[in-house]
């Protein structure tokens, strides 16, 4: 079975359309979405309507949560004063633009999804705001996968796709129960993987192309897909809808609009 995993659409309808066409051409059997349907881009309602219409199982991203709950993340979300200003502008615009039914849909999204030995989250199993970066400490990375009980953990949030295999993992546990009982246990973890799906609507890999992944359970292979689309249409819509012009320039360059991980081990304190 072929499973397509998409993430971080960020209200970029043109990119979503192109990716859905590519998924169709790849004959994927099912699609999962890792959230961040809205934020920064010009078409939040259209993107949500498309996801709803296709009945794509979707978990809630940090932007989806922010639009529902309001901006209440700690200062970790933004790497600079400038990024915070721009993030707030995008949030305020999105907050005004979305329809009540869009907000309702975002509010009811689950934080994680499971399908057989696959788990789907936006940031990490612990928090939508946590970044699972490819250089993250082995032990911490393994813990994040083990916490789900799955063999493959699909995540997004960083906007840079990658596949990380965690094999040969050995864990030692020591439990002390006062006053005298101490138990030691050692066990080996089977092969686990973290797969980051990249971003459909806001790539950060230096090109404007959308990215997503396909997992083939028969061959046990993960394929990273990069899809060209007419990003100039999205740039024009950004300007037309009154979003900051710099968003269009950054999208065309394949740069993040504002957010990126400063401290990958930091977990947002809400």
């Amino acid at each position, binding site marked *: 079975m072929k499973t397509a995993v998409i993430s971080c659409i960020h209200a970029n309808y043109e990119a979503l359309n192109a990716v859905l066409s590519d998924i169709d051409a790849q004959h994927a059997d099912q699609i999962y979405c890792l959230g961040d349907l809205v934020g920064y881009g010009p078409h939040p309602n259209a993107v949500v309507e498309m996801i709803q219409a296709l009945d794509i199982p979707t978990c809630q991203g940090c932007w989806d949560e922010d639009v529902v709950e309001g901006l209440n993340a700690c200062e970790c979300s933004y790497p*600079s*004063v*400038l990024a915070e200003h*721009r993030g707030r502008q995008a949030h305020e615009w999105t907050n005004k633009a979305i329809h009540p039914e869009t907000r309702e849909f975002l509010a009811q999204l689950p934080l994680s999804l499971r399908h057989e030995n696959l788990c789907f989250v936006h940031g990490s199993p612990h928090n939508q705001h946590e970044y699972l970066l490819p250089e993250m400490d082995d032990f911490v990375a393994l813990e994040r996968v083990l916490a789900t009980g799955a063999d493959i953990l699909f995540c997004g949030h960083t906007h840079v796709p990658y596949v990380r295999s965690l094999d040969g993992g050995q864990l030692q546990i020591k439990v002390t129960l006062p006053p005298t009982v101490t138990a030691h246990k050692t066990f080996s973890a089977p092969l686990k993987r973290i797969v980051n799906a990249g971003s459909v609507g806001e790539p950060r890999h230096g090109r404007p192309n959308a990215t997503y992944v396909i997992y083939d359970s028969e061959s046990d292979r993960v394929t990273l897909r990069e899809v060209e689309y007419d990003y100039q249409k999205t740039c024009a819509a950004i300007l037309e809808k009154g979003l*900051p012009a710099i968003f269009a*320039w950054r999208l065309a360059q394949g740069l993040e609009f504002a957010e990126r991980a400063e401290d990958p081990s930091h977990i947002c304190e809400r």
Partner: protein
Amino acid sequence: MNTSTPNPVNFAQSQTIHSILTGQVIDGASLETFWYELTHGAYGQVQKAKGVFTLVDGRVLQLDFVAGLPKDSLETIPETITTELPLPPCTKGRPDHFSGLEIIGFNLDRAGIAQTLEDSCLDDQALAYYQAQIQEQIQAQIQQ
């Protein structure tokens, strides 16, 4: 977003922007983003840009950009040269030494540059917050 490509040797078409930033304090990550955007065409075609900026940690940096240095013959010279100026660091209140920006180029987006600079500089509350942290670090280093 400008699409026309003016002749870079036609000085009649060129524009110059000056901005005095004395008293303003910028955070380093914001300056990095702004300078990247400025020198990569986000606000028009910049030929030369020189700026003196006071960072939140008190350092004063001079950034000097010249576009189009031929990379094959001068590849050891980066397009932007960054120099830390030998001034006493300002870690309390607003600095009174000069800081500012001068840009020469074509089709420059004056409003966009101004907006990004404004969004990159710290307001009084944020400045006091960060400077208090820096003061604590300095005190801790002295005690060690």
